[in-house]
């Protein structure tokens, strides 16, 4: 997959063995264990959300199964003051950023309060239209640069999203403005049913940066150490005024596009089993246990804690009332225009003031 002109970074191979010289942070036990915990938290939550959808307790949900190293790696490389412009598959990254599980459940359930997260206040909500969020990141980066702040905007898209003009236009603006923005492509091989080779004839997606003067590189998106490293370096460079960067993470989508999709209709089962061998969690666990940092008991107690946290969030979410019907009017404008007051009154007359508890 890698192109000879495009750098490719990998430290942990699928079997957990190390290639090349590990960056210094790989010796930071606390940091690496935190990455591992975040990845497990993401996968447990993801599994729970899919189960809830299958039993009618959540609407459509886009799982991130198999892409945890990407999400956790890049989100952990960000500072609190940096700003994330995520897609609908970036829930695990939002979790690292401080968005609460209950808030993600609310968002998935179609409750706008789920995007009014308490932390981080400046991050954008998940963008569902493809690639449009890349322009928002560039605009925010411009604003931060204009004010002389050192924060960096980080935005993600998929391999499919990289085909859109919005992505090219946003990178082009970022290049001209030398804006502090990092473009991340989660190349998981699929845009619903369309494989990577039907998406672009370019050998890599990272080289799309070349056309607009934005340096591109690839990283093994199943290797959290590699993702954390390259994103940290790119953010540091952007923070110091060196402009934007493009990073293509090679991942595998180990499940369906969403709970409304059935990938067995278009994806070869053998390919999927091959890709499972490269999944990101096992190789990191092997690294941790080789370092003598992690054992069976640690694993069990961590998983118990995570499951308890998830259950609590689900309980809180399911105990919450739906928003008041009239709230659909209350955030359309800073102040409700007189022209809309009659419609709002009509909704209150029909549905009352209270949420319906469903």
């Amino acid at each position, binding site marked *: 997959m890698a192109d000879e002109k495009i750098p490719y970074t990998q430290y942990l191979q699928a079997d957990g063995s190390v290639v090349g010289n590990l960056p210094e942070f790989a010796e930071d036990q606390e940091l690496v264990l935190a990455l591992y915990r975040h990845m497990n938290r993401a996968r447990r939550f993801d599994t729970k959300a899919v189960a809830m959808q299958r039993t009618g307790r959540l609407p459509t949900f886009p799982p991130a199964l198999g892409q945890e190293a990407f999400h956790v790696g890049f989100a952990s490389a960000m500072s609190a003051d940096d700003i994330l412009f995520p897609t609908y598959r970036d829930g695990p990254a939002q979790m690292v950023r401080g968005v609460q599980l209950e808030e993600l459940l609310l968002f998935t359930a179609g409750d706008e309060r789920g995007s009014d997260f308490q932390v981080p206040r400046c991050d954008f909500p998940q963008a569902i*239209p493809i690639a449009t969020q890349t322009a928002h990141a560039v605009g925010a980066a411009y604003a931060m640069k204009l004010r002389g702040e050192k924060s960096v905007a980080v935005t993600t898209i998929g391999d499919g999203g990289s085909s859109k003009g919005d992505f090219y236009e946003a990178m082009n603006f970022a290049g001209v403005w030398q804006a502090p923005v990092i473009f991340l492509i989660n190349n998981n091989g699929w845009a619903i049913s369309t494989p990577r080779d039907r998406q672009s004839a370019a050998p890599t997606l990272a080289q799309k940066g070349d056309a607009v003067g934005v340096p591109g590189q690839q990283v093994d998106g199943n290797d959290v150490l590699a993702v954390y490293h390259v994103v940290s370096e790119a953010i540091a460079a952007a923070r110091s005024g060196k402009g934007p960067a493009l990073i293509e993470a090679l991942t595998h989508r180990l499940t369906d596009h969403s709970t409304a999709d059935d990938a067995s209709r278009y994806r070869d089962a053998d390919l999927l089993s091959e890709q499972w061998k490269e999944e990101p969690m096992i190789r990191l666990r092997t690294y941790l246990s080789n370092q003598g940092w992690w054992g069976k008991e640690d694993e069990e107690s961590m998983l118990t804690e995570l499951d308890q946290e998830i259950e609590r969030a689900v309980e809180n979410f399911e105990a919450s009332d739906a928003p008041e019907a009239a709230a659909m009017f209350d*955030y359309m404008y800073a102040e409700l225009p007189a022209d809309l007051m009659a419609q709002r009154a009509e909704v209150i007359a029909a549905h009352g003031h209270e949420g319906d508890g469903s």
Partner: protein
Amino acid sequence: MTEVTLVQAVSMALARAMEEDENVVLLGEDVGVNGGVFRATKGLQKKFGSERVIDTPLAEAAIAGVAVGMAAQGLRPVAEFQFMGFSYPGLDQIICHASRLRNRTRGRLSCPIVYRAPYGGGIHGPEHHSESTEALYAHIPGLRVVIPSSPVRAYGLLLAAIRDPDPVIFLEPKRIYRAVKQDVEDDGEALPLDLCFTLRDGDDVTLVTWGAAVKETLAAAETLDSRYDIDAAVIDVATLTPLDMDTILASVEKTGRCVIVHEAPSTGGFGAEIAARLAERGLLSLLSPIERVTGYDVVPPGARTEHRYLINEDRIIAAARRAVFFPEAPTEQDHTMEDA
């Protein structure tokens, strides 16, 4: 007081807004060094610097989109589409993001953006340079659609739009960019964004209009008065959405007749919304069918025939007379004043 044209009033308001709030930035194609293709931003880059008056790459979707990120980060971007006909790549960003960011984050993030665009025909422009598609934007909840039709209103409404905490589509009728001069005091006073402007009181018929057609409508009202003794009220809607229907209803209650005039095509035009609301709330005031004098449901014709398409005074006068003499058909003899 300075006597200025509509486009100069736009410049004045932009300069004033930039002076009073360092978060106001301008962006668009050729807005900086060149001062805009209509010179609406003339001299502003020199005054406020290239970081606040930004010549962007040529990409309307990105112009619309970066404005969203800027606004959410506390700036007050004024983004220019060079012509309304080139604003459509930006629709995705405006509809999917700018208009709804406040709602989808329950007010955590918002988009105080002004998207400016010269609009309408009558300047012998090439294809795509004569669009009047304000109804596209008026259909989108979360936006305000504002169209000034005089230098005074351009100044006051643009200041209001920039200060407004929500996204505003600000359409400038380029046919009258330099048609008249008015005294405009650069006093920083904004005009309200939710009130129609009554330009002329009248008892016989209410002419409701906006944009460049205000010019022909006012002229028609003068002729109706002097030649036919018909006393026409003229309302400049100016702030299409959210709509101030009360001002229109109050006038129609008095006159019993309404002629809606706009340059845009008839079907699905914003006049249809006003007519529907009159039917809902003012039916019993009406003494005659609501008349619409609009563009035809065709692609705006090229420069050689656009004068056959654009609203003229005669069509407005004929419609007003049909309304006044309904159910009879007006004849020239019946209604010509003795001294005409």
